[in-house]
């Protein structure tokens, strides 16, 4: 009996999902967040359409507060991989100077991320968007479909999701509605790291520990990535060996103290530390059901 290893099964499933979605959609796009999951997502998409190119663009929502290293990586990675990159920012928000300090993480995320994403999807007339979300990331995502339906207002209604049986996905939508597709649904954190390792997939250096200027805030290390960072009275940046478990907007993304310089180090640390990775994202702590709330509003 021939069987596939679990990682090869996950890979095959993701490739199947990519091809299925493309065969159903009019105008698909891949939401590229620059993080490690996005890197894996791109690699799987490339495999799905090898030896052809990706039959869709990759879209990055630039909140204007990303780590500088992320933007540099994005431009290098997309150029190397020959991706058709679209960058979209909420220009109105940028002009108004919307930032996480004055507006608070909630309002800021809504304006610069959720609204920007909705606007980009609407103007691009995309009826299907690939995302890198995994079900093991967070409680409310455990019930997320692989093909997740969004209504005319791009909103997610947990009560109005389509039953999903076998691998018979249903991406049919009426005009204005859309589907988010998550090819990494069944991947776990460990799967992602091992895949990056065996496939030698480039990721942003921020995942690896290095001395970086940080301040301690609400029990987390926040990196002072540029001079826009607003320091509280008495706060003084200090240099610490830190790394990031997830990447987002630098004032909202906590670093963990670490000396892990390789993937093996990181996995070893993860197994020992056992702090669920999303806990370093400040936005999730706004309220008990905050991720579910954000999803309903259209956040990825």
């Amino acid at each position, binding site marked *: 009996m021939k069987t596939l290893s679990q990682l090869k099964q996950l890979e095959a499933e993701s490739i199947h999902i990519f091809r299925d979605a493309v065969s159903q959609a009019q105008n698909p796009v891949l939401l590229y967040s620059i993080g490690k999951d996005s890197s894996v997502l791109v690699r799987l998409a490339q495999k799905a359409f090898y030896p052809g190119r990706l039959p869709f663009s990759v879209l990055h929502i630039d909140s204007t507060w990303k780590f500088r290293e992320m933007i540099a990586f994005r431009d290098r990675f997309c150029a190397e991989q020959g991706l058709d990159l679209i960058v979209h920012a909420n220009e109105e928000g940028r002009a108004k100077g919307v930032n996480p300090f004055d507006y608070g993480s909630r309002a800021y995320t809504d304006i610069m991320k959720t609204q920007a994403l909705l606007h980009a999807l609407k103007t691009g007339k995309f009826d299907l968007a690939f995302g890198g979300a995994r*079900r093991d990331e967070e409680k409310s995502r455990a019930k997320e479909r692989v093909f997740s339906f969004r209504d005319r207002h791009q909103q997610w209604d947990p009560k109005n999701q389509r039953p999903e049986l076998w*691998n*018979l996905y249903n991406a*049919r939508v009426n005009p204005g509605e859309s589907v988010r597709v998550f090819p990494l649904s069944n991947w776990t954190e460990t799967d992602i790291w091992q895949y990056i390792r065996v496939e030698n997939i480039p990721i942003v250096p921020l995942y690896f520990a290095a001395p970086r200027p940080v301040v301690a805030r609400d029990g987390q290390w926040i990196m002072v990535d540029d001079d826009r960072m607003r320091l509280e009275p008495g706060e003084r940046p200090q240099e610490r060996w830190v790394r990031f478990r997830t990447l987002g907007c630098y004032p909202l993304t906590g670093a963990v103290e670490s000396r892990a310089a390789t993937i093996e180090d990181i*996995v070893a640390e993860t197994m020992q530390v*056992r702090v669920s990775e999303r806990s370093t994202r400040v936005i999730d702590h706004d309220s*008990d059901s905050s991720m579910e709330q954000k999803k309903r509003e259209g956040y990825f």
Partner: protein
Amino acid sequence: MNTIDTFLNEHEHKNLLRFITCGSVDDGKSTLIGRLLYDSKLIYEDQLSSLQDASAKNGTTGAGEIDYALLLDGLKAEREQGITIDVAYRYFATPQRKFIIADTPGHEQYTRNMATGASTANLAVILIDARYGVVTQTRRHAFIASLLGIGHLLVAVNKMDIGGYQEETFLQIRQAFQDFARKLDIPDIRYVPISALKGTNVVTRTPQATPWYEGPSLLEILETVDVSSDLNQRDLRFPVQVVLRPHLNFRGFAGSVVSGTVAPGDRIRVLPSNVTSTVARVVTAEGDLPEAFAPQAVTVELADEVDISSGDMIVHENNRPQVKDRFEAVVIWMSETPLKAGDRYLVRHAGRFVKARIDAVLYAVDVNTMEQRQAESLGLNGIGRVVVETTQPLYLDAYAANRATGSLILVDPLSNVTAGAAMVTDDVFVDTDAPRVVGDAAALLRDHVDRREFHWETGLVSAKDRLLRNRHVGKTVLVTGARAQAVQRFGKELELRLFKLNLNSYYLGYASLARGLASDVRDIRSEHDAQVQRLGELARILTDAGMIFITAIPEADAFTVERLKVLNAPNELLVVSLERDARRPVPAEAALDEAAEIAQNVDVVLALLADHRVIPEYCI
């Protein structure tokens, strides 16, 4: 570092088991899953800390104990209601295996969720509360698991601690389940006595509590059960998802091997074209493969230039699936709108969408007793056997032989919601070649029209396009009356007047029909019926073509008119009757006085046509 290296490499090469857990709210299912996750060290510290907050608010366990169930219920509404109302997927791994759990609710209304979880599972864990034994719900869960083709059942008799771990209790429940399970088609059933709360026989065997139990722990069974033979490795089925044509020298067909194997040199056949060729290469991004097997996703290149599009299927030359546009299936209904005979849906099967129509509901199955009963329709969570008809043939295997090509979903064509799931069965009730049994002549005709319309192939010119060019829509006008001559004359005058108004009109006399289209009808007894049938079909075609089609049948009876109306569906027939006296032979939209001026009578009909928005107002 070497240990992590080993850990990661081992993790990569583990095999995978997908299983579902079924049990009611109180069976301790969430506690069991919580424990599996916890003990396999995947519950991270912060999830535990947020859990302790929530336990204080909603927890149902005693003070000081962790409520493992709260780990699982993700969504806010559910946390408040305290029941799981959707399928949640959980992941954990042991050094032996990686697991994906579909956590499905046991609540009565949620048959569809269990079916969803079961559709991708190799194994089902069925929890039984030792205090209550095999209950209705247990039977329901086992039935659905067998329906979805799950070959391995793990019956966990839980809460053994409450009764003091009595062997007798366990044996009784096992016997009761065995008696019932004989009716199900599940080859592999195991039983294990556990206490999810105390951890008895969950991860490791606990002989202190159950010295009389000599079998493996629940997790040991999960780690060792062999599911490699569950996949059909015999029949190659390769639905083409995408045609890849990056440059002139490469034309590959990308898809997943959903069953069987494929290798270079294999003789293959393409459906529906039936063209045969040879596999030249099996391409992946990592290089060509000597062979691909399920569930690998690959790209196949053929030796010959064959026209293949997305949705076609590649199979081995001499191993064909059934090619059918009418077949029986067991449906699990998932929509608030009941499923009835005659309903239209889209079928998604093996990567394509095809229009479908429910030909008949054969019977419904009571999910609790497994008894069949007559049914006109299937409601939400209903299960039943139906006959499905599709506009194009599907490439099917029975679900029992092939899960991938025997499964399909039904999608509502307007809302696009997935309304049901179906599993193809062998045809038992319907002989697809035999003529169909229908109650009476009218029903037979309606059924004929329904099928004709369902299979009607429309061109690229829409009715609206025709309207824009012609300035009017198509219509069939039936002129009848007592006197043949008057009827025919009026029909021709109407044709002429419409023609002079620059409208497309055509008159066909009944006699021309009898000598032409219907000239092959020889049987004197059915002659009239056959002629009417042909006239009706012709009217349908000419109306669709945008023509104002006029025909005259002297002394048409109500039956003939009714038949023509049915045959003309979805278009409506305009019946005009020329009468001599007050007697009305047929129900007509316009009863004209035969003695009146013809031009005047034509005016009346034109007004009627304008009224029906067939021709523009300004024509009259």
